[in-house]
């Protein structure tokens, strides 16, 4: 709690980022109060430009862009959040096991991790999504993204655990009779939390980007509104050619805002957690108010030999 308060007070990028994320959150909450259901069409006049009745205009399908956007943001965040959750869980599990247990298991797991690192992810995603065309749901997409995005973080966690394993407190804990699970979860896991935090944000941004990419290509569930599918349908009805830019502007602006918001929060968090910048933050800038007085040595009145006599 104090962390968040400090960040608010001292980090401008966190303030801006938090404000942007709050706006995104408002959009998500608004989606629950939408007068139209997400898949409903022809509920409003088609192709209306932004006006007082339709703040962001309407689409060629007769949907209100503003309300559609609230659903789109929600779905995109759900996909990205699930992907991060799945990916980081696998990463922590694999990293901890291969780091702590070591030996043959470590070698096997490490080679699997290396395999996942060298796989080019975007072409593979496009391929899988193409095969699953028409059956892709929001959940399946999240799962797919999660499964492809754990190898790099897991290598980082493994490196951490490898060094923690040799520390004195681990030996003491093992000597005291703690079992492996307890040592790893209670003694080592707290060390990973800052890494996990930074990784979660970067993974989130990657997942948002991938969702938008696949949807724009028409490879995700096109009936569920998301930022990517909004752009897809806008293109489909030739929003640019017919000069109905508001249909495309809303989702593009939303994706930019989400990415910038998370990025700002992420860099301010990283800077806050970095011990080097933390030290310089603690330092008081400027001159001390009162000059430090040099202590004046009192003249010795008696020679030192006088004490012993």
């Amino acid at each position, binding site marked *: 709690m104090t962390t968040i308060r400090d960040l608010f007070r001292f980090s401008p990028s966190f303030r801006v980022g938090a404000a942007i994320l709050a706006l995104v959150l408002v959009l998500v909450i608004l989606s629950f109060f939408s007068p139209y259901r997400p898949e409903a069409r022809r509920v409003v006049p088609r192709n209306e430009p932004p006006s007082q009745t339709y703040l962001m205009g309407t689409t060629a399908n007769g949907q209100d862009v503003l309300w559609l956007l609230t659903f789109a943001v929600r779905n995109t965040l759900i996909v990205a959040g699930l992907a991060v959750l799945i990916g980081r869980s696998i990463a922590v599990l694999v990293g901890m096991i291969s780091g702590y247990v070591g030996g043959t298991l470590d070698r096997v797991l490490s080679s699997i991790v290396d395999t996942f690192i060298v796989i080019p992810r975007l072409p593979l995603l496009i391929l899988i999504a193409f095969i699953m065309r028409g059956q892709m749901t929001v959940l399946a997409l999240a799962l797919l993204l999660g499964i492809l995005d754990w190898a790099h973080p897991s290598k980082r966690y493994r490196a951490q655990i490898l060094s923690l394993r040799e520390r*004195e407190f681990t030996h*003491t804990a093992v000597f005291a*009779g703690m079992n492996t699970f307890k040592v790893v979860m*209670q003694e080592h896991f707290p*060390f990973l939390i800052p890494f996990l935090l930074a990784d979660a944000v970067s993974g989130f941004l990657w997942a948002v980007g991938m969702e938008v990419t696949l949807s724009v290509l028409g490879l995700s569930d096109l009936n569920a509104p998301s930022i990517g599918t909004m752009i897809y349908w806008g293109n489909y009805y030739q929003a640019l050619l017919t000069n109905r830019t508001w249909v495309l502007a809303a989702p593009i602006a939303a994706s930019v805002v989400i990415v910038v918001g998370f990025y700002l929060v992420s860099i301010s968090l990283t800077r806050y957690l970095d011990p080097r910048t933390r030290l310089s933050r603690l330092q008081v800038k400027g001159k001390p108010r009162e000059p430090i007085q040099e202590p004046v040595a009192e003249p010795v009145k008696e020679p030192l030999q006088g004490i012993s006599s």
Partner: protein
Amino acid sequence: MTIIAEAKNLKAYYITQAYGVERTVKAVDNISLQIRQGEVFGIAGESGCGKSTLLKVLLGAHQPPLTVVDGSVHYRFDDEEIDVLALTEKQQREIRWDKVSYIPQGSMHVLNPVRRIRDSFHDFITTHRPVSKRDSAEMTRRYLRDLGLPEKVLTAYPHQLSGGMRQRVTIALATILWPKLIFADEPTTALDVVVQRGVIQLLKEIQQREGSTLVLITHDIGVHANLADRIAILYAGKLVEEGDTRTILKNPQHPYTQYLIKSLPRLDERSERVSIPGRPPALDHPPTGCRFHPRCPLAIDKCRTIDPEIIGIQPGHRVACHVVTEEVSRATTG
């Protein structure tokens, strides 16, 4: 006088083999000792003489390349005899920290830097007792209050504590479950003398309250003089002398012990302290015969070839030295 821990003819060597070159370091060579219930048993010796190795074997916590070649270690708790070197991993887990505890060397790295002291205590307690977080916190608070440590350390992180406080917290952590046998490895090293005194008093208090047995390992004879009931002197992996603290300090028999005691500074004497000539031997190729003979001023021919056995010259006072043995036998026969 009940014996709580006993080592018999213990031999533990570091055996390594790299690229066909085999090396054997005899860090603990034929050591027998008995630790009595309720006493403070001090183990002294210079750096590299095998103190920490002996401790590892006494705890049964040795790992390759350290190998126990011969001998046995037994604990005795209320007529229950435990063969330390034959314990399974599960049995080891059960007795460690609960009955036999260990205060590690260098408390700087013993506490987990990202856990509050309270949580560290909770982790260690729940390994052996099924208690809730609130109970363990209460237990810890009461224990720290009894030991006179400030309660506010509970919510602190290790880096917020001073070195002395950290060492005291580590000692409290090692003794929270009232173990019967406590091994302390250099508990006062790297602390200044004022803090050392506090740590020594804390150890004494814990030991006297429950009548636990404390095995104290340090090279600091001053600490031994303050704390220990009996002292064993190690030299180059061998036990050279063992006796009451008073006997060892006032009437040392082995030439090495004599040098060790002579090198201590005294307040009332203004002469230069004598140090032992030479350096301690490398343990992979120890000298033949008595391992101290290259540095010993009293060495006779026998010392160069025959390894002296440790012999009781008085009740409770054992020495491993040919010269002393001959003197004693001459005195008794002549």
